[in-house]
């Protein structure tokens, strides 16, 4: 049996199921308990699990992320929620210098099974400090795994996998997609980390995206279909480790690739995908890999500037036509 639930509820179910299954899992972050989460993702969890396992923290990201790391080194499985990933910047020291490196520097004496989660990406007119994407920042660091996803079914399955994973996982959601609905079965299931999903099959061009950019990719693909261009849409789901094989297989079929990535262009996920494809599918490419990113600037507040900054379906369609050499 399955039902239609929101991304918010899917994430809630993932955490709650894992907390029922394993006593060592706990949730910690700002407003996660009494307020039910800034975006209501942890609604009801304080009632079910009590204040020892659903813990409100002060606004002290560096401190509570580090407390998570220490607890993980000492046998627990923390889920650390950041109200958004923009605030996780304060905790980068603990994520990058400790969570990612504990296993290596202790030669396996200690590991760090922790999930850092929260929304990433722009969410309207929130201006410079509240609009950033962090997938490529975190994915640059060996020792971390990175998941970025909005599909409710996959989010639930992937978050459960992340909580069970023995390595640290950065899990990225979307502030404006928590209300997104999708079919989710009643029965338990897992979605493995490290596999992309083909969301739409096509033959003329491959569009790779992740998180809420998948919506643009799908929208563009629908429009393009009306003009006789058949686009295959891939949702990366996991950023690190990246599932190159699924992209390579697709490009071997379509011979063209557009990457839609809300992050900035420089040294981003789009750059990484383009590198791998030129390396492993060079002979299959009929056009240079093209990408659609946010602008190479900070994101200001004014609506006209947000519009100019953000990727949108029209920009994706334009890029597809460019690699297809059609006007």
């Amino acid at each position, binding site marked *: 049996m399955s039902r239609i639930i929101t991304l918010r509820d899917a994430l809630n179910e993932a955490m709650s199921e894992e907390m029922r299954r394993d006593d060592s899992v706990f949730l910690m972050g700002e407003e996660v308990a*009494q307020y039910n989460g800034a975006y209501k993702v942890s609604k009801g969890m304080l009632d079910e699990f009590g204040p020892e396992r659903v813990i409100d923290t002060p606004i002290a990201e560096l401190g509570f992320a580090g407390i998570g790391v220490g607890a993980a080194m000492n046998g627990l499985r923390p889920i650390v929620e950041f109200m958004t990933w923009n605030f996780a910047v304060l905790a980068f020291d603990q994520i990058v210098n400790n969570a990612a490196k504990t296993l290596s520097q202790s030669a396996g004496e200690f590991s760090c099974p922790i999930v850092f989660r929260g929304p990433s990406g722009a969410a309207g007119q929130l*201006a410079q*400090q509240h609009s950033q994407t962090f997938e490529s920042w975190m994915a640059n660091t060996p020792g971390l795994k990175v998941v970025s996803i909005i599909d409710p079914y996959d989010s639930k399955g992937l978050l459960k996998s992340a909580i069970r994973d023995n390595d640290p996982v950065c899990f990225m959601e979307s502030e404006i997609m928590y209300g997104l609905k999708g079919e989710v079965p009643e029965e338990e299931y897992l979605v493995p980390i490290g596999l992309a999903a083909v969301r739409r099959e096509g033959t003329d061009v491959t569009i790779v995206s992740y998180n809420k950019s998948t919506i643009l990719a799908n929208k563009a693909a629908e429009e393009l279909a009306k003009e006789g261009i058949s686009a295959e849409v891939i949702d990366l789901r996991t950023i690190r480790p990246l599932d190159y094989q699924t992209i390579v297989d697709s490009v071997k079929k379509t011979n063209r690739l557009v990457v839609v990535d809300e992050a900035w262009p420089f040294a981003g996920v789009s750059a990484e995908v383009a590198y791998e494809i030129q390396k492993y599918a060079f002979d299959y490419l009929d056009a240079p890999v093209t990408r659609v990113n946010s602008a190479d600037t900070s994101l200001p507040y004014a609506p006209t500037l947000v519009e100019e900054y953000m990727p949108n379906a029209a920009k994706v369609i334009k890029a597809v036509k460019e690699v297809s050499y059609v006007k």
Partner: protein
Amino acid sequence: MPTISTKKKNSNGKASGSAFKKEIYLSWYEEMYRIRKFEERALMLYSKQKIRGFCHVYIGQEAVAAGIKSALRPSDNMVTAYRQHGLALSKGLSSRSCMAELFGKATGCVKGKGGSMHFFSREHNFFGGNGIVGAQIPIGTGIAFAEKYRKTDTVTVTMFGDGAARQGALHESFNMAMTWKLPVLYICENNQYAMGTSVSRTSNVTDLWKLGLSYEMPSEAVDGMDPEKVHAAIEKAAAHIRSGKGPYYLEIKTYRYRGHSVSDPAKYRTKDELEHYKDLDPLEIIEERMLKSKFASKDEIEAMQAKIKEEIDEAVQFAEDSPFPEAHELYEYNYLQEDYPFIKD
């Protein structure tokens, strides 16, 4: 510089005597009324979607801005967090440039770039609204560092909330400011909540002024519902700082009448608590004192209110009539280098 008159003031109750000169009461009232009306309009315009994004209003906290303004000089610096409209106005940014900024218009104080959380004005020594909780604490310390470096007698007011007081950066800043005797006035605006979290839920130490004591920084608690008390505390602190003795820390106890931001219904507090603080409304208190001391008649107060309402109406009209920034302006103010090669593929 305004000075406290010798007349004894009544420390409790609404209608105290007149401890300050008439002009100061009038300026407090004007300042607070402007902020109150500006914020009420902002909320209304938010509901009409003229203003977007996050919007945190200052309603209830006006006495803090008023007391800081009257006790300090325009040349003193200020840096604060995102709950900043009122503080920016009190630093002299115009209602129209602030309202236009909320609308995201090119005529806003930062050309539509920053919105509600990020007003700045070099002219008014206003170093901004910061959206990252606590980030402005070391920044304010650094602004003060530069003043000391240049040997000025400028005070840098560094404002932060009770929630921000739990960031580690506070301790690092306090320690360095004290060690280097930096001319910084730290002000914790304790409105008792950080989003839905009350002060007592964030620490064993709920007297936030005590955080300064471990650095031996002069530290005091102040009633922030009364501009008289705010002014007096700031004046004393500023004299200490200007004399070269280093930083000073005030925990100013205040209250926000509205939710954390427009999207917060504020269910975590009781009606009684809110009513208690509404009884302490600084606008009403100062109005009563002005009437009682015959500093202003009812008619004069109404005339002042009408003038400010007109100013706000005009600001809204100005914002409404102003253009949005043009798309190409996205690339402005990212680098000072004029031909910076942006990636545009």
